[in-house]
């Protein structure tokens, strides 16, 4: 069973986020990047599947600051290969990222065949969770998102995926493989990688480099980002105090003042 996990670095919100001078993005010199938490869960699910069914886990990511640390950590945890795609630009949009990854996956023979492509269902800078469905559509593969559990049949031709649905429901899907799954959570907390193992991986393992295909080629049209700004503080909550009658009276006053009553 060959599993590919798409990883992505996102801004670490432990640090204050500052805007770049041109106001269309974050100040990349100030931002500290970490592995997207949901991608870490996708990796955990992949490693659990590998432990159960054997096979290989490959992690794939577009180049980003501090990405190597995350890739070595994935290798130390049990991934077999780590592949970094270079030259896709700084902080590409989700559409651009999906295009590049899709092209790489189609062209790069060493990444074939693959039974499952897992990635986080969303990321803090892609709350729409578009990466996985775009990738699936570019590759012509089935997609399921918000997946919380995956099991694979013996032949690795079909998977059962449990998906979270609104109102607390869960739904089980049977999906033909290969497929792209957006992972909400793994069956357990992503494992800890002791620093000794991480450092050993940094010494003994290598990250494979792949150049991104030239831009523009069959690129998905992305909307243009005009401006990014921090939310403005707008007014404050007013607490109505006093007895029930007094509070009700004040409330009625406010509503009628604003023409709502």
């Amino acid at each position: 069973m060959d599993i590919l996990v798409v990883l992505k670095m996102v801004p670490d919100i432990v640090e204050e986020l500052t805007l770049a001078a041109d106001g269309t993005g974050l100040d990349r010199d100030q931002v500290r990047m970490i592995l997207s938490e949901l991608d870490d869960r996708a990796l955990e699910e992949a490693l659990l599947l590998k432990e159960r069914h054997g096979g290989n886990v490959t992690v794939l990511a577009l180049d980003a600051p501090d990405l190597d640390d995350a890739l070595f950590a994935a290798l130390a945890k049990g991934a077999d290969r780590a592949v970094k795609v270079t030259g896709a630009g700084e902080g590409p949009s989700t559409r651009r990222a999906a295009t590049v990854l899709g092209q790489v996956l189609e062209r790069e023979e060493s990444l074939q065949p693959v039974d499952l492509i897992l990635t986080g269902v969303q990321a803090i800078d892609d709350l729409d969770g578009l990466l996985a469905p775009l990738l699936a559509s570019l590759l012509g593969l089935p997609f399921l998102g918000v997946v919380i559990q995956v099991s694979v049949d013996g032949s690795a031709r079909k998977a059962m995926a449990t998906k979270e649905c609104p109102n607390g429901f869960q739904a089980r899907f049977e999906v033909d493989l290969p497929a792209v799954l957006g992972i909400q959570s793994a069956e357990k907390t992503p494992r800890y990688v002791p620093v000794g193992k991480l450092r050993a991986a940094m010494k003994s393992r290598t990250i494979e480099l792949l150049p991104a295909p030239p831009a523009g080629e069959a690129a998905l049209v992305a909307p243009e980002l005009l401006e990014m700004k921090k939310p403005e503080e707008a007014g404050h909550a007013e607490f109505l105090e006093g007895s029930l009658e007094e509070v009700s009276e004040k409330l009625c006053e406010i509503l009628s003042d604003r023409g709502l009553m």
Partner: protein
Amino acid sequence: MSQSSPATLQAESEFTLESLFESPEGRKILTCMQCGMCAATCPYGDVMEFPPRRIIATLREGDMERVLTSSSLLNCVACYACMAKCPRGIRLGEVLLPVVKEQVLLRLKDIPAELQKALQNMLAYGNPEGMSPRKRADWVKDAGVPVRILPEDPRPTDVLWFVECHGAYHPRGVETSRATAKLFDALEVDFAILGNEERCAGECSRGAEGEPGLFDLLREHNMATFGKYSFKRIVTSGAHAYDAFRFSYGDVGFHYPLEHTTPFFSDRLDQLTPLLKKELNCKVTYHDSCCLGRHSSFYEEPRRLLRAIPGVELVEMCHNRVNSICCGGGGGGNWLDTYYKSKGYERLSERRVKEAIATGADVLASSCPYEIPRFEDALKVLGHEEMVVRDVTELLVEAMEG
């Protein structure tokens, strides 16, 4: 931990009985006469399947795996009680237990979540709290006295004050740091801190938490930072940092004169006493922290400081000095409270504050930054909030500012 990944198996196979018993300290373990003092004095000895005595017996039988696959050592709070009581002088807490704990953690299917988060934070941010390393010196803004930050003003200094994580980030630790800064200032000490270049000293990650690789990394960082500046000595307010520098940084060439703030201020009592003007009029009991007490024998220094405060009556808990009971925060215990609770074990901080309450004291004093929030929480849990918890330095400043 994965049971099947090649990396795991490799790391596990490096540990053998032979490698343990090759070192002089390891050989000393063979002299154990199975008296059981260690198990009896261990604060969690009653709930451990493998207390130190039984670990040694089982290792000598050659049945190492039984010990390593038991979770007993998660209950080791690195309090050095077993080591202090061992009639053979076996350095259990420094040698045997950290080595075994590391292997236990490697074999554990899941590391308790809070501990795992703390370890990951130490690697990512240099502090277990998971706070921004760029904000490590933020507390200085409200210190009330000037605190020089070496990276901003690298002139040579007499004292390099190592603030440590709790002192820099934990709201209660920050209060203690402010008191420490005021004392340095009042004594006209030439001092400076490393600010955002400081990282966790790592004591809690060392053998104590079974993560020596992380400890090595933090130690390398701090040693490189020390090398950048000129100072006469390191004074730290972190009892665990003191412990790490004194006992575990020597291997990588730590040669700086080292002091902890409590004995540092105690040595300057002549200068300090005239400043202590306000009568505090309270009964104080002092909790000996494991690192400063049992591991470094600073028993009288904090008591000397407390007695110098006008209106302080010092009373002792039934377990004091070498017999002090751990607050439960060492050895990673600070991040295992939920785990202990889930197992139904009594929290050691609660056991300890019950002893403090029994003395009739108004104030529980300590010299270790872990203890203050731990004891404050324990007092809340027990519903005994009349008692206050103070660092010795905080009481000194209170008496100074009268």
